[in-house]
């Protein structure tokens, strides 16, 4: 089965559901503003925007809307990979998928792409208006670059998400463990709290997450620094490629376990 056919099937699945559940679509537009508003509100009432700008080198509104969009995008695309095995178990399609000869790597690479397209649209309702309001035409351009970088960041997360999905579903109690792993990955991403401020162990763990390097590129760019631009992007892509065989094996191992034990369909 070609990658194109799998992708087409995934698009049909995701968009038919998205059109049916319009409230989820509205949520996608509102969430970056909600999260940014929440963190800004806390920050402004505790301290001041000037101190934030002095410490981070970026206006807090720009920083937080970027962080919220980043977290929403990475979370949504990673979630698709993490939850799909569970979703297939619950709706009863898992035995068919296990029996099918489709390449698991192709399948899991295709899974987050439809939602990623919707997330790019979300960027036009969050990143672009705020950047344009702050920096004018230049803001529009830098907003587009940031959106492109975040898209790349989401794509580099797929293989790591496959590794985590295979491991977590093999261990069991998976949705509960996932609810711990997801926020942990989001913290280590460094979008809201830059990793240079994290303790050493946090920094090291963060460096193992491909898109954390993309987040650092974005933060540097917002500060007007372009040092290590290509090195960090190359690091993110290299990590993603490095995780690919592990991700494939991890999913296959979990499937073999299911074949041995049987698939429960709730």
């Amino acid at each position, binding site marked *: 089965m070609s990658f194109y056919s799998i992708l087409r099937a995934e698009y049909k699945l995701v968009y038919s559901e998205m059109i049916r559940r319009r409230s989820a679509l509205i*949520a996608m537009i509102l969430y970056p503003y909600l999260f940014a508003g929440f963190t800004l509100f806390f920050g402004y009432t505790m301290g001041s925007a000037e101190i934030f700008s002095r410490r981070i080198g970026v206006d807090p509104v720009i920083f937080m809307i970027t962080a919220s969009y980043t*977290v929403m995008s990475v979370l949504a695309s990673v979630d698709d990979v993490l939850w799909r095995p569970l979703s297939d178990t619950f709706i009863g399609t898992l035995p068919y998928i296990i029996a099918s000869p489709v390449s698991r790597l192709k399948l899991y690479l295709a899974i987050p792409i439809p939602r990623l397209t919707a997330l790019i649209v979300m960027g036009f309702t969050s990143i672009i208006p705020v950047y344009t309001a702050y920096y004018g035409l230049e803001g529009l351009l830098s907003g587009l670059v940031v959106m492109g970088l975040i898209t790349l960041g989401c794509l580099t997360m797929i293989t790591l998400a496959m590794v985590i999905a295979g491991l977590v579903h093999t261990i069991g109690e998976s949705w509960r463990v996932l609810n*711990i792993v997801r*926020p942990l990955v989001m913290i280590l991403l460094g979008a809201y709290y830059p990793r240079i401020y994290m303790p050493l162990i946090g920094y090291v763990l963060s460096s193992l997450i491909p898109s954390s390097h993309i987040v650092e590129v974005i933060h540097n760019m917002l500060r007007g620094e372009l040092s290590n631009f290509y090195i960090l992007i190359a690091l993110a892509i290299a990590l993603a490629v490095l995780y690919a065989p592990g991700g494939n094996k991890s999913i296959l191992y979990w499937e073999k376990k299911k074949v041995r034990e049987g698939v429960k369909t709730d």
Partner: protein
Amino acid sequence: MLKLIRRAYAVFKAYAVSELVRSKGFIYGFIGFSLWIVLFIAPMSLFVDPGHSTTDIATYGFTAILIFMFYSIATWDWAAELRWMINRGMLEYYIASGSGFLPHYLGIMPVSMIWLGAALLINYATLSLLWGPPQIVIADSLVFLAGFAMLLTVLVAYALILGGTVISSGTTGFVMEIISFILPMATGGLAPLSRLPYALRTFALATPFSYPAEAIRYSMLGLTPVMDISELLFRGYVYALAFLALAIAYFRYQLKKILREGVRATAMW
């Protein structure tokens, strides 16, 4: 009265066993929850000078979490419970039994409070790891108790209005989530009114939510409220009781409405 206590105890026992004893996800849920809190609270320290006391940041964060969690309980444990009752097919039985919803809510409230206490402990530990232990000093215990009772009154009223709307209009979980995010911010629940912009402060004072939050912050953080404390308590209680009376009337009206038109049963999301 004895019947009411017996019914409430039966509900409490059922929920406590199912949610606190049997559920394996209890601990996982707390860890996940505290991590989400860290994600959104951690950037707060970037807005203050590096030389500022980290204990102050932790205490401020803890008080905000405390009030936010009360709002969350009113939204998700009390108002959304009605929706779960619809989805599980329990609501019609409650209406038909004639016992009303009071025993059910008297039964689940202690479970909510146990959950809240445990979640606050986890958050206390998380904030201690991040910035050092928050300093919890109840400077004025009388005002704290008065503020706490006022907060419960206001939140019960809020849950009745939200729950009434849920059962009669089929409001989605998404709308509830948006409300649970915006309401604590807009009504002065998360930050002292003196630190809010004038327009937002005026709006917050026009709602009953801001008064108990100010009283609790005054008694726990020693923050001077925007008005004299006795005036704050008086105005707050008048407002809270009026709000509760309105909420009860509204909820009864919505119940009558669903008896005429039927229950709108839709999925949680």
